[in-house]
């Protein structure tokens, strides 16, 4: 059973509601710090980027960098199984500050240096893509699609 000591995360999961037409909506945005993500995913920090560590407001699980560039928004956590420098470049141009590699994949050497130079935080989790996304979603972290929809529909406080 996943421990949910994180106040914000628990709050968010607790507020999952059924909307009209069956669409699910969380009543407010859950923000997760790198440390919280680390706990939920049993993840290891590969490089910390620049201090202080950033936090994220939504997640995106994706191996296609083009999709990342199309849909991910700033303050997104990128989960990916792809370990190439293009992941770092894509993260940089899309204003993504935190990348977590799934299934224990771990970038090395040049790639870590590249991420460091751009202030991007890298994590590695032993869980697969499905489990990783599930764990975070259960904690109330939302997907970047949902967040986009919400903005389009004009829902939420803003």
């Amino acid at each position: 059973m996943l421990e949910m000591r994180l106040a914000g995360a628990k709050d968010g999961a607790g507020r999952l509601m059924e909307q009209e037409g069956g669409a699910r909506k969380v009543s407010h945005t859950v923000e997760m710090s790198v440390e919280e993500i680390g706990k939920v995913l049993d993840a290891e920090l590969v490089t910390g980027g620049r201090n202080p560590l950033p936090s994220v407001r939504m997640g995106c699980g994706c191996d296609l960098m083009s999709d990342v560039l199309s849909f991910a928004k700033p303050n997104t956590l990128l989960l990916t199984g792809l370990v190439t420098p293009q992941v770092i470049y894509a993260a940089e141009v899309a204003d993504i500050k935190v990348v977590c590699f799934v299934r224990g994949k771990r970038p090395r050497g040049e790639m870590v240096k590249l991420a460091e130079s751009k202030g991007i935080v890298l994590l590695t989790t032993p869980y697969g893509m499905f489990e990783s996304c599930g764990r975070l979603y259960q904690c109330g972290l939302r997907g970047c699609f949902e967040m986009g929809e919400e903005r389009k529909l004009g829902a939420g406080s803003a």
Partner: protein
Amino acid sequence: MARDDRGFTKIQELAYELRVADAMTAAVETIGPENTVGDLAQRLREMKISGMPVCDKEKLVGMMSIEDLINCLMEGELGRKIRHKMTRDVVTLYADEPLTRAVERFEKTGFGRFPVLERKSGKVVGIITKGDIVRCLLRKLEIDYREEEARRHRVSHLFDDLEADSSRLVLRYRVEGGDFTTAGQRSSRLKRNLTRLGFHPEMRRRAAIAAYEAEMNMVIFTPGGELEVCVEPGRITVEAVDRGPGIADVELAMKPGYSSAPDWVRELGFGAGMGLPNIKSCSDEMTLETRPGEGTRLRFVVGPRS
């Protein structure tokens, strides 16, 4: 969360780059072994320092710290010669050692200061305390910070400072076809430039994403080409010109999800058929000219219509 402790903070990096010589106090005060403890007390008071290397004709023979002095005071030994009271097993550092070595030594030994020797001659050239290290790191951090700030400041005012009715800056990036190791690098550099030039985050993000897609297309499908970025206040125009095979069916290529990329490209996370549609959605204007067998000229603008 398990934390990787193999050194990634800026401070650790700096402590590795900097040398003991950068942090130490040079022109060190020394005392001779034949002087008395009383002489030492007077010198320490005058100089307002807390310890001194003991040197016999430039050769280091021991150390006297304020703790040693207090012990002598308690024993009433102010008149005794330094050589009877000094610490003989002196831990030293070489001036060319990295600062991390000094930090380790302080942690390991618990001493307050180390004499610093020149490696070749073995002469005492300085003394280093924990305070010296902290001061040196802070100074270096401040210099680095100021340099980046100055750079940002300088460039962000570029357009204000130029005296003309209108001005534009052209940045050119050459792209190698098929070279996946550097693919994405130009867009990354472009983004940093747009940040320094003070563009709004959303605008520089859109321009960089579109440029990244254009760059990837060039790497995947063509033998190479050039990205020419024209920067004006509030407006970014990118022209991506390649010598590739051209696009046979533009309408089809613009369809989200359509791609003619080979499998090896897909394995690298590209070729999902989102490139051109993504460039279109990120830009405010887009035109595509292509001639089969000759090449493609893609132009897009981020910013208000001219």
